[in-house]
């Protein structure tokens, strides 16, 4: 049987090297081709997971405590698939984007390849130290991409991002050190039964706190969100899209993994409620701030802050005693993750096109966009539908599942938050749309844009919208154990 796992690690690395060798600003075509190959591999892998269930993969053939293990299950499959489905159109988009605007293009391709490689290895890793390395990889690649724009604002944002991500991974590594010190292993497969069977030690608790705090910092959950908007709002549009759609999700994925697998014996209902509370605060505060922005990309970036909040609602909902409620909370959380990734990528891409065309990142200048770039505006609107959680989008399915879980678990507070959040997101999405329907601001001339900028974004938005119809497959993959 052909096993795509090692190739999914080696190939993106190889593309990264080759694009670097190819020279400045070159190699886009190679990346597109490479991503297509990887997408096929991911699909094969997903099929294998559905057929045969989750599996461990021992790198070097050494196996758990000694070597590094990889672990691939339904959730991994979803994340990998999501990564490639989002990245492929974005890469096509980026080629067009950088052909019309050179700023930040110089090392975009190798950085992106390594970013995707980092994502792949992160999702598959089952070894907490290895995860640390992948976290650093992801962080450095993302910082490099953010800073590539080269303006003072983006460099400041990149530094802030870098320091935050370093602080986060430092705290994480401290947790790893404590766990290794106490249990003598860094492999999840070894640690999990150890934590579950032995009595809870203070070291494990502290480690859990440190690791989760570090990851929360990287995920930009509410009080830690300060770094995200400038970083995501200041980067070139393809980069913003990649970061907001995928990179944030990577650390969330790890929280999910650690919370429900490794630290399952340690977590308490109060902690889950706390996370949920922070998530709720993120939804409300992020949406309000998004609404207050005057710059389009900042608005989209703050919307990411808000949307991340939804993801964290799944923690309190999962504590529900009713098994059905817990299950649909998990499903809802994952659907939200997937839907948001697709929609946010589309939204940032669309915002990028608009900014490129208007020449300036200002919502007030968007008037007339509805007739100048109808497709892009339509893309923005479709993505907005997913963010608002309106049918038939994937976001709607996610919200349905989450509300269902909250209602059947009797946790009414979260229902109110989600409903309010949906309305608030409508407020900021329509703030943009209504501006676009107004007549153009006097004196502004829109630059024409390449067609290839508009279509990939539209494709992403369409996928996010139609995801609602194919969510059974996603959930099937999630459920494959």
């Amino acid at each position: 049987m052909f096993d795509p796992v090692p190739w999914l690690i080696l190939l993106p690395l190889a593309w990264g090297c080759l694009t670097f060798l190819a020279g400045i600003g070159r190699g886009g075509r190679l990346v597109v081709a490479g991503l297509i190959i990887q997408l096929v591999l991911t699909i094969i892998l997903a099929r294998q997971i559905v057929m045969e269930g989750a599996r461990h993969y021992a790198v070097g053939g050494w196996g758990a405590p000694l070597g590094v293990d990889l672990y691939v299950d339904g959730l991994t499959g979803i994340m990998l698939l999501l990564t490639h489905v989002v990245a492929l159109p974005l890469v096509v988009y980026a080629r067009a984007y950088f052909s019309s605007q050179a700023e930040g293009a110089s090392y975009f391709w190798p950085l992106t390849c390594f970013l995707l490689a980092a994502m792949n290895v992160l999702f598959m890793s089952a070894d907490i130290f290895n995860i640390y390395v992948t976290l650093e990889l992801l962080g450095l690649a993302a910082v490099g991409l953010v800073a590539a724009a080269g303006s003072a604002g983006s460099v400041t944002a990149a530094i802030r991002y870098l320091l935050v991500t370093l602080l986060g991974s430092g705290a994480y590594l401290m947790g790893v050190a404590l766990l290794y010190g106490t249990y003598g292993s860094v492999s999840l497969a070894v640690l999990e039964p150890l934590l579950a069977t032995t009595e809870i030690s203070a070291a494990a608790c502290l480690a859990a706190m440190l690791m989760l705090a570090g990851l929360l910092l990287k995920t930009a959950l509410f009080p830690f969100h300060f770094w995200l908007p400038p970083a995501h709002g200041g980067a070139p549009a393809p980069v913003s899209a990649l970061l907001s759609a995928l990179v944030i999700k990577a650390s969330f994925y790890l929280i999910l993994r650690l919370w429900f697998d490794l630290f399952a014996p340690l977590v308490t209902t109060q902690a889950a409620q706390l996370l949920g509370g922070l998530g709720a605060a993120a939804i409300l505060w992020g949406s309000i701030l998004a609404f207050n922005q005057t710059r389009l990309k900042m608005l989209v970036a703050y919307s990411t802050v808000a949307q991340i909040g939804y993801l964290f609602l799944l923690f309190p909902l999962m504590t529900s005693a009713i098994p059905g409620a817990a299950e649909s909370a998990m499903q809802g959380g994952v659907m939200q993750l997937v839907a948001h990734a697709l929609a946010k990528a589309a939204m940032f891409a669309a915002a990028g096109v608009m900014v490129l065309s208007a020449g300036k990142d200002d919502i007030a200048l968007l008037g007339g966009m509805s007739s100048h770039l109808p497709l892009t505006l339509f893309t923005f609107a479709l993505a907005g539908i997913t963010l608002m959680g309106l049918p038939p989008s994937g976001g709607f399915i996610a919200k349905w599942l989450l509300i269902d879980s909250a209602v059947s678990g009797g946790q009414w507070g979260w229902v109110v938050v989600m409903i309010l959040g949906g309305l608030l997101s409508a407020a900021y999405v329509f703030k943009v749309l209504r501006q676009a329907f107004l007549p153009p601001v006097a004196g502004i001339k829109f630059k024409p844009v390449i067609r290839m900028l508009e279509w990939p974004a539209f494709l992403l938005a369409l996928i996010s919208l139609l995801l609602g119809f194919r969510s059974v497959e996603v959930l099937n993959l999630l459920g494959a154990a």
Partner: protein
Amino acid sequence: MNFNGILPLLVLASSLVPGMIIFFLPESRIRLRTTLNLTGAILKLLLIGYMLWGVQHDQSYVFRYNVLPDLELVFKADALALLFVTLSAALWFLTTLYAIGYLEGSPHRSRFFGFFSFCVTATVGVAMAGNLFTFFVFYELLTLSTYPLVVHRGTEAAIRAGNIYLVYTLAGGAVFLTGIVWLYGLLGQVEFTHGGVAATLGLEYTAQLQVIFLLLIAGLGVKAALVPLHGWLPQAMIAPAPVSALLHAVAVVKAGAFGIIRIVYEVYGIEFAQTLNLLMPLAIVASITIIWGSLRALWQDDLKRRLAYSTISQVSYIILGVTLFGPAGTIGGVVHLVHQGIMKITLFFCAGNYAETLGIHKISEMNGAGRRMPWTSIAFSVAAFGMMGAPLTAGYISKLYLIQGAEMAEMVWVSWMLTASGLLNAAYFLPILYRLWFINQPQTWLQERIRAQGRWETHGLLLIPPVVTAAVTLGAGIFADTGWSPLFWVKLVAEMEYLP
């Protein structure tokens, strides 16, 4: 999957696909766009005709698709659905014709017709939804696809109206969603079935079911413009006339009213709703809306605003009929869904004609327009009489059954209220007719745009639709007892709902 299962999908696609293509057409491809639009509309009418025939011959058209393991997207063409589908498809066809004429030469037509088609698709989806989930999906789609139509003109006023529209409908949708999810949590599946599914729960859930009912009605009431939630509707007048026509006659308000019909009859079941004491409060709200809308209509000088308040009042007839326990009330309410649609669209077409041809927007400017535009004015008059409930018109039939229903349900105050409302209707329509026909026309019209071409008083495509609908208004009244009238169908529906 057999053809019968796919048919509902085809009905949806017949407007969705042209809509999508049109959306990406360049502005200049007028002929292709028109062809697509009309092909879609005619195709849809044909398909619906086939289904009407089929339903009469006991065929069933059901399409199911699992969105989630225990959540289905269901399209079902039952009698009630077909009633609404036929109405919307027919009126869509006419409105499309009208809109082609109306928008000739104006910008952004691709966008307009794209969203126009989406809007109809959503309406058809609402009509054919086989369960509450599907209903909600298309109910929200309707909101989204109508927003661009409302703000189509792109003026500050239009945008403001659009904002108000969104605030109301999205908030309503959110409340609606909460109710739906709750109900799904209790029932597992909420398929529309005759007699209702909630009844299976039993009386120990009374309190919960009452709250859910409140949530559902509050959500639907926004679109149906029940009184405290009606604020968006007069604002939305800013939209182009075909949009207003569609919004008022078929799409938005009717979706709300239709949803209430579905909730009362096929989710709760009329008898169960009666036992839960849900009907009386709804009847009171509907009555208040009827009176309030009529009263407000009296004071409007803007023609379209007056028609809008009239809509608020008239749509609640439907809801009132629904709350009257007994077949007659049901028939009265449901048939008014169709009748009001036909009549109101006529009125809006005519209002659009006056505005487009003569530049008339206000009632005070309408003096003598009847002689300048006789055909339009005749259509307008017929529809207005229908609204008042004059004999020989469709409106008469509705009122007749409503009053019967009120008597059967032993709610005498309702028949008094209906009478009063009829008088109010007369009070706000008769002055218009008086101005049309009996006051001399001024020397020059405000801004006469479309010169009379040949023997037509206005653009042909603007004239045909109102005349046709006015004729149908009369026809539905005169031939109410034949097998093809709306009344006949509604009786069919009512029979099923009151089956033991």
